């Protein structure tokens, strides 16, 4: 069974790119337009990994990470945050919230897949 990865991002183009890359690589993808959407979808179907943007309307990435980690079934899944800024503050905040790793935008499909391989196997 192929693994399911959720991409949470408010930018359609980013979501499309991530989704396309993942599907090409044989993963199943669940798309979410913001943190709130993501959380509700997380409850519906099991997800093996979460890739989330940090700046989103309704619920931002940091909050999404915290809430996801709070759910017992998602306590140990890898969570990757996408951030445009490479400053440490946001990174630290995300890590403190429970993120596994991060990808700095812009990134290439190969880099994305490399990170997934690193954390999801």
């Amino acid at each position, binding site marked *: 069974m192929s693994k399911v990865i959720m991409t949470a991002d408010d930018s359609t183009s980013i979501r499309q790119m991530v989704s396309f890359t993942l599907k090409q690589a044989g993963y199943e993808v669940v798309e979410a337009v913001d943190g709130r959407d993501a959380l509700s979808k997380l409850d519906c179907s099991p997800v093996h990994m979460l890739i989330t943007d940090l700046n989103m309307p309704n619920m931002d990435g940091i909050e999404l990470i915290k809430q996801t980690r709070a759910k017992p079934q998602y306590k140990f899944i890898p969570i990757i945050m996408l951030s445009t800024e490479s400053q440490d503050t946001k990174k630290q905040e995300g890590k403190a919230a429970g993120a596994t790793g991060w990808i700095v935008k812009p990134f290439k499909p190969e880099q994305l897949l490399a990170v997934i*391989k690193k954390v999801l196997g």
Partner: protein
Amino acid sequence: METHAEAYRAEASELLLELESSLLLLEETPDDDELIGRVFRAMHTIKGSGAMFGFDEVAAFTHEVETVFDLVRNGKLTVTKHLVDLALAARDLIRKMIDGEEVDKAEAEEITEGFKKMIPTSKQPEAPSTVEMVPEQTVNVTYRIRFRPESHLLTTGTNPILLLEEMRELGPCQVVAQTGGVPLLSEYDPEALYLFWDIILTTGRGINAIKDVFIFVEDVCEIKIDVIDGDGRLDVETGYKKLGEILLERGDLRFQDLRTVLEDKKFLGELLVEKKAVDPDAVSSALAEQAHVKQVRQKRQEVETVSSIRVDADKLDSLVDLVGELVTVQASLSQKAGMQGDAGLSRIAEEVERLTGYLRDNTMSIRMLPISTTFSKFKRLVRDLSNELGKDVLLTTEGGETELDKTVIERLNDPLVHIIRNCIDHGIESPEKRQEKGKLGQGEIRLSAAHSGPNVLIRISDDGAGLDREAIRAKAIERCLLAPETELTDSDVYSMIFAPGFSTAATITGVSGRGVGMDVVKRSVDTLRGTIEVTSQRDRGTTITLKLPLTLAIIDGLLVEVSDAYFVLPLWVVKEVVELTRADLAEAHGKHIANVRGEIVPYVPLRDFFRMDGDPPPIEQIVIAEVDGNRVGFVVDHVIGGHQTVIKTLGTLYNNSREFSGATILADGTVALIVDAPVIVRQATDETIRNYG
């Protein structure tokens, strides 16, 4: 990792070859989008894969080239000769880097600058890829890494197993888990992590690649990376002999004593664990390190293996030798079986003969290589040389699939280079001159190879000015190679160009004209038992044909007998055999000259030459051979017939007997010496001059 690097090298080599041919074609058709795309893709792959497999230097260097060809691809730059020149130079440099050769930094800098100048706007330096591709060391270094995560690592979604697997991808890797921290079950928190790992890793990717593995976890883990074996760094101290070995060598200790002592002794690890000085895990980790480093060092010395098996040429030679002996034994078996007339034995003998034939052909074919390997080198040579001399020359090749013995191919390279240089320098005229003569501005050199019986014909023809018969003649007379009044055929005159130091070039051009070269060609071809033929037509061009034997291990010979001893004359020098009667001897008044159909042929009586006893039979035979362009006879008692001669080299004791190029064993076990005809003729001539002159 090593296998990846090897794969990359192989892939890159192919790409570089393709790159070269594409560039050369591109020069001819600069607007070919398909070609430009191919060049770009090749550069792109070399760069991209280079970075992946630790060829960071290559990747960094290729970056500029790729950028330029990307611009070309997008129509922002056009292909110029300068661009192709630079790209070819870059290609050579990349080749060196991939082969791990020392690269001239200044040259690399110059090429990079050349490419940078071509990029119109200056917004390229911040290309992101250059940042990652800081040249790093590509030599393998062994690291000791201690990876001790904090106990809550799992709750960050990190799976340490994946990180360890990532480490394994960097290179040969030993991972030892340290389980000492695992608490009793009652205190065990299932969500916590109690393990830590010692990792011994050998990689050429540099320490940053290792740090990258732990990039997400570096602040929740203790990561300690030490270099334990660099490029030969610690070999000196640790590579020395053990104490016991030294004592044994000096004679201070007897082997039996050493062994009894050693039998009592326990391993240090066991002792330490017994005394509870260290944890058993720590010992196994240390032992893993020891084993790993040992292995890495061993590997460094091992020869790299490729998908096809590389066999030592010596082994092949000894196989050929063995097959040769088998052929000999089989011949005597067939002979014996034929004499006995036993149907059963004959059948077996025939079977053996058939199989031996297959075996021989098979063994020979192992040594065969297509000549295209040599041909492809010349395309570049022609291009560079014609550039240098301001000529426009196209090289076409034909019959590259023709197979030749490996040794022959190797030794053929130099003569061909000389011939091609001569073609370009003396043969092909400058474009203006050619147009005056009504020829195309671009000259052509054709290189072709084809089988012809047991030989291979290699033809090098140009459509240049042709050989100047009179100039060669005049030069030959000037150099006293020729008496002024001698009348010579065209081919005799043309063969003068192979005389040592012979050159009609008015000026020395740095490429040729020093008169060194064509005599080298002649000599190389001679040692290959080949012949050279030159034909030429004024203003139409020159054709040089090299006729070479397929192999050097088995030759066709003529078996002859002199005073109960057997000799083999190589069949290709033999032209005919005539009788020598007492009457003929009387007629010549003791001079060693025979009259063959009105032609005077000097001869060498082998009986006298080898100072053999016994009286010659009433009717002797003269084997007439062509040696160095002259007809010379060898007088023998009997001619036995053609003989498939398996050449055996003479032992070192016979190094000085230059009259023989080797020996062979006949069906009945008798040894026959293979006569080196040119040497004998020369020695006999010297002797005659001493006696009479």
